[in-house]
């Protein structure tokens, strides 16, 4: 019993040390990169040949889409680690990712809607790409509700959000391939393995802003994991104190 709890604690302690060390550098470099690339996107990048200035929203829309989809991929991997190896940090990582992931999925939908109005002539259509991205946002909401309920019920139910995290991963390739499988109003990907249909003015700015937003995402996940761990420790301490108090 004691050995079991020590084993569970060993990793988080080492993790906490590392997380404390990494949070600030990740956050600072991310904010700097995002500020620089969005500054470039707003003032430096040239207007696009057809879309003019509305193309500037690209520098927020694409990183948001990438992090919305990347976030769920990370949840799925963490869920696998939780289910199979029962890694003590995996469930905490998945719970920490859910909120920023949902935020970026929503940001992708909102910026896409703002962009769709001038570019396509519509705020929203029930297109394969748009609909599967909306489904991803709903999956995040459902995951957060499940994880919250599982935490309230105690450790026994942590498997349910993990299974949900794995099942929901089916949506990720659907989002990616929606524009290739089905006729879609959304254009196919501009950047694929080793090949880009973007002028370098847009490509490099986009890569920088994607990296910047990803660094911020990482910092937020670390902060949220530390907060969840601190919460668990505080609760365990309270419970212990209550038990000791009962002995008196």
């Amino acid at each position, binding site marked *: 019993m004691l050995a079991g709890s020590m084993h569970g604690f060993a990793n988080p302690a080492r993790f906490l040390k590392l997380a404390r060390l990494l949070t600030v550098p990740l956050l600072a470099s991310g904010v700097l990169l995002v500020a620089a690339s969005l500054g470039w996107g707003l003032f430096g990048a*040239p*207007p696009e040949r057809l879309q003019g200035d509305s*193309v500037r929203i690209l520098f927020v829309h694409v990183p948001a889409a990438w992090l919305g989809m990347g976030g769920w991929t990370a949840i799925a991997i963490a869920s696998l680690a939780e*289910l199979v190896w029962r890694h003590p940090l995996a469930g905490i990582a998945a719970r920490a990712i859910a909120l920023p992931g949902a935020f970026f999925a929503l940001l992708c939908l909102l910026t896409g809607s703002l962009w769709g109005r001038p570019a396509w002539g519509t705020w929203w259509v029930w297109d394969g790409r748009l609909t599967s991205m909306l489904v991803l946002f709903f999956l995040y909401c459902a995951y957060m509700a499940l994880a919250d309920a599982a935490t309230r019920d105690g450790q026994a139910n942590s498997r349910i959000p993990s299974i949900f995290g794995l099942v929901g991963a089916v949506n990720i390739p659907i989002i990616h391939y929606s524009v290739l499988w*089905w*006729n879609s109003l959304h254009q*196919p990907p501009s950047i694929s393995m080793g090949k880009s*249909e973007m002028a370098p003015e847009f490509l490099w700015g986009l890569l920088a802003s994607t990296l910047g937003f990803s660094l911020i995402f990482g910092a937020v996940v670390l902060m949220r994991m530390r907060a969840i761990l601190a919460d668990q420790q505080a609760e365990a301490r309270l419970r212990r104190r209550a038990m000791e108090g009962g002995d008196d």
Partner: protein
Amino acid sequence: MSQPIKAKHQRLVLVLVALAALIGAGLLAAWALRSQASFFYLPAEMAANPPEVGRAVRLGGMVEVGSIQREADGVTIRFVITDGKARVPVRFTGIVPDLFKENSGAVAEGKRGPDGTFVADNLLAKHDEKYVPREMKDMTAGQARAAVEETK
């Protein structure tokens, strides 16, 4: 005597089998949806399998070069949507989106008329995956690449 299987290996196999089944189901569903989930018909699809007259459908493709004609009332346009295999004449009354241009993607929402003309009540523009600044738009791909090389 057989070696007892470790619990975590058993879980791994279970999860992987479940995942494979799930991905298979997802791919099958996507395959089944391949025509239903499309946002629009291509002209060739519409020619091969025409929807009944008066049913609301979407038609998408490229606006044929030189086909856009404005009618006398000033708000109605006629043009041809093509995919290289078939061409469908379209009539639309209303304000066109900024990106609606010749030789550019468009999606028309409307109904097939009895004379074969597609009567659109909404028009959406579809742009391609290329992002190019204005200064480079008149260059050929080779010139643009050379210009990009120079800036490096």
